[in-house]
């Protein structure tokens, strides 16, 4: 039996047999077991979810898991990671195998409703792009008629690809694999001419190819891909915590609070910032979330603000060197915006 089939069966079996474990509410479950089980990218997607040679997980999505752990336990290290393929991720969340999914997952209305998940925070605004070998001399995606296109199955990418080629009246030959590593290998072996996935992913994958300079990423972005954490629907307490963990990181950047200066900022007179860091007298924001008043302080102190995390994982401080673009703060022309914390 294939691995995927096996995990799907196990996922369904769990869905059938874990009636009473998930009933208490995810926050209580997580607190009771003492760690957060976070579903991340299992394909070593550098910058989002990847494991280094010592087994340490890093990435933008991994930072979000750590932020939630910091908010719940005051300790960002209390996370256990479940590496998941694109196909395994939804059964894993549905069955309760993981507490939250932070695996560069696109927020769509179908996933938000029919699949039984809740999405709100977006920790990376992405769009689907194409990568081709330089030697093919392709300048635009509209020249790709007749090409063999490598794509990962069970993704929104696969659907956008079909729609884009159909809308533009282009022919193509899909070469579909379940795992990103298999798509990488097929592209490298010349099984296909074009690699398509989220543009951030293309940057990350290009770095892992033998000669990154031999491949170009085409200018077209053919879809909106708001990537964010997902939780099971109908658990608003837990949903709030996961969403606000991300917003706290963004708010931290808005306030100019970093992991380095957060202790200094505790002495601030700014009432907004005081409330954010849990220094206001008799405040109850944390309590209302079901957390400690120091939840946001712990996130910033142990994980950093959104800008720090972006820079360290995918931005200038990383090999990917992706510009902030849509992911800049709203004050700087981007889309990252935290609702008021009050």
């Amino acid at each position, binding site marked *: 039996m294939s691995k995927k089939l096996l995990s799907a069966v196990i996922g369904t079996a769990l*869905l059938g047999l874990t009636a009473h474990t998930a009933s208490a509410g995810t926050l209580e479950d997580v607190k009771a077991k003492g760690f957060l089980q976070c579903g991340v990218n299992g394909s070593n997607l550098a910058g989002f979810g990847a494991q280094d040679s010592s087994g340490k997980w890093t990435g933008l999505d991994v930072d979000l898991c750590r932020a939630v752990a910091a908010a719940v336990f005051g300790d960002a290290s209390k996370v256990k990671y479940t590496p998941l393929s694109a196909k395994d991720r*939804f059964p894993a969340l*549905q069955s309760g195998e993981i507490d939250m999914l932070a695996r560069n997952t696109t927020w769509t209305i179908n996933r938000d409703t029919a699949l039984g998940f809740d999405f709100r925070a977006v920790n990376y605004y992405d769009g689907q792009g194409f990568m081709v070998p330089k030697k093919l001399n392709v300048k635009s995606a509209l020249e790709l008629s007749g090409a063999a296109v490598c794509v990962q*199955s*069970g993704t929104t990418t696969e*659907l956008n690809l079909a729609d884009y080629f159909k809308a533009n009246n282009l022919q193509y030959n899909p070469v579909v694999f379940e795992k990103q590593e298999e798509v990488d290998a097929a592209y490298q*072996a010349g099984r296909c001419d074009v690699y398509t996935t989220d543009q951030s992913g293309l940057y990350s994958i290009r770095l892992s190819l033998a000669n990154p300079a031999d491949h170009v990423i085409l200018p077209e972005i053919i879809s909106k891909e708001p990537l964010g954490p997902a939780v099971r629907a109908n658990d608003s307490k837990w949903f709030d915590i996961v969403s606000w963990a991300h917003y706290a990181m963004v708010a931290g950047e808005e306030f100019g609070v970093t992991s380095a200066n957060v202790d200094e900022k505790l002495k601030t007179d700014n009432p907004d910032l005081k409330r954010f860091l849990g220094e206001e007298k008799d405040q109850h924001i944390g309590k209302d979330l079901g957390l400690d008043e120091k939840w946001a302080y712990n996130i910033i102190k142990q994980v950093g603000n959104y800008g720090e995390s972006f820079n360290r994982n995918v931005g200038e401080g990383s090999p990917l060197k992706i510009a902030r673009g849509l992911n800049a703060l709203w004050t700087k022309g981007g889309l990252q915006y935290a609702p008021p914390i009050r």
Partner: protein
Amino acid sequence: MATSTAVRDDGGRSKSSILYNPVLRQIIYQVLTCIIIAWLIWYAASNVAENLARANMTAGFGFLNGRAGFDIAQSAIPYSSDSPFTRALLVGFINTIIIAVCGIITATIVGLLVGIGRLSSNWLIAKLCTVYVEVFRNIPPLLVIFFWYKGVLSLLPDVRESLSLPLSVFVSNRGIFMPAPIFGERFWIVPVALVVGIIGALVYRRIALKKQMATGKASPILLVSLLLIIGLPLLAFIAIGAPVTFDPPVLGKFNMRGGTVVGPEFLSLYMALSFYTAAFIAEIVRAGIKGVSKGQSEAAAALGIRPGLTTRLIILPQALRIIIPPLTSQYLNLTKNSSLAVAIGFADLVAVGGTILNQSGHSIEIIAIWMGVYVTISLATSLFMNWFNTKMALVER
């Protein structure tokens, strides 16, 4: 001995305690088992329903009529992203059937040859066949698939430097590109001629066997049958003016254009499953032949029957009785192993179903469909093989 007398003693005292009544005990055990099974089913079903309701998910197969939205590269029937999920499942199902049928035919032929080869008196052939069997049956089938896919087919040249074979056949790491035949208007006559030929051959065989029973004279059944089955369609084909043209593949900007292609995913899965299963079939064939007692062929020789006829009429029919039951399970294994296609991206039922599962989120329904389809295919194969087995069984008087 002591226990059996004890039981008999108990039996005599059964009036004293109804619990010692063996009939009653049997009934109680069976009722208990039924209750436990029914409870398990009810528990699982209600749990699924409860969990689905909690996750705001709906159960049911209605979603299958929705637009699929994804493309499938290897499709035997017309399919596009506008087709419904049911159509996508059908594409996957047909691909599974194709791989199973092709694999079963090839595995049977290779297995038969290797199995007979292992019994050969030629030392080299016997040893080569032994090595083949020992190598292939001791490697997991997934590795054999990867061996063909990554070790053989992806090492072929890039599509732009394809190996060019005669008759416009091109071989590259994207598969074997061949000219696609385009059939003319009156081509339908040829398959009709083929069917007529097959029926004619069957009728001739029946008449010839009757004649042989009556007069003892053998007719050249094989020759006449071949003439009817091959000759008749060929004659028809020439008579209507050979209405077939070919569309050869040509290298386009990215890929070969035109023609028809057998992809490396299909090829590697087909080769791997065929050669893997052939190793087991070879052993079954060898066992079957060995299982016919030597006295049978000696008796045939004593009656003056030629060696070829001895094998065909005496050894093989008896060997088949031993071969068919285990052969059935090998056929079933091959069919089920075809679900390993997912590892190399061949669009079989499991791969397509997995994509639908992920796009629609209806995991329980898809897994139910998977199980239903595989059980159906396996039962159908079993039924056919059981029928064949009954037909082949020794007619005892």
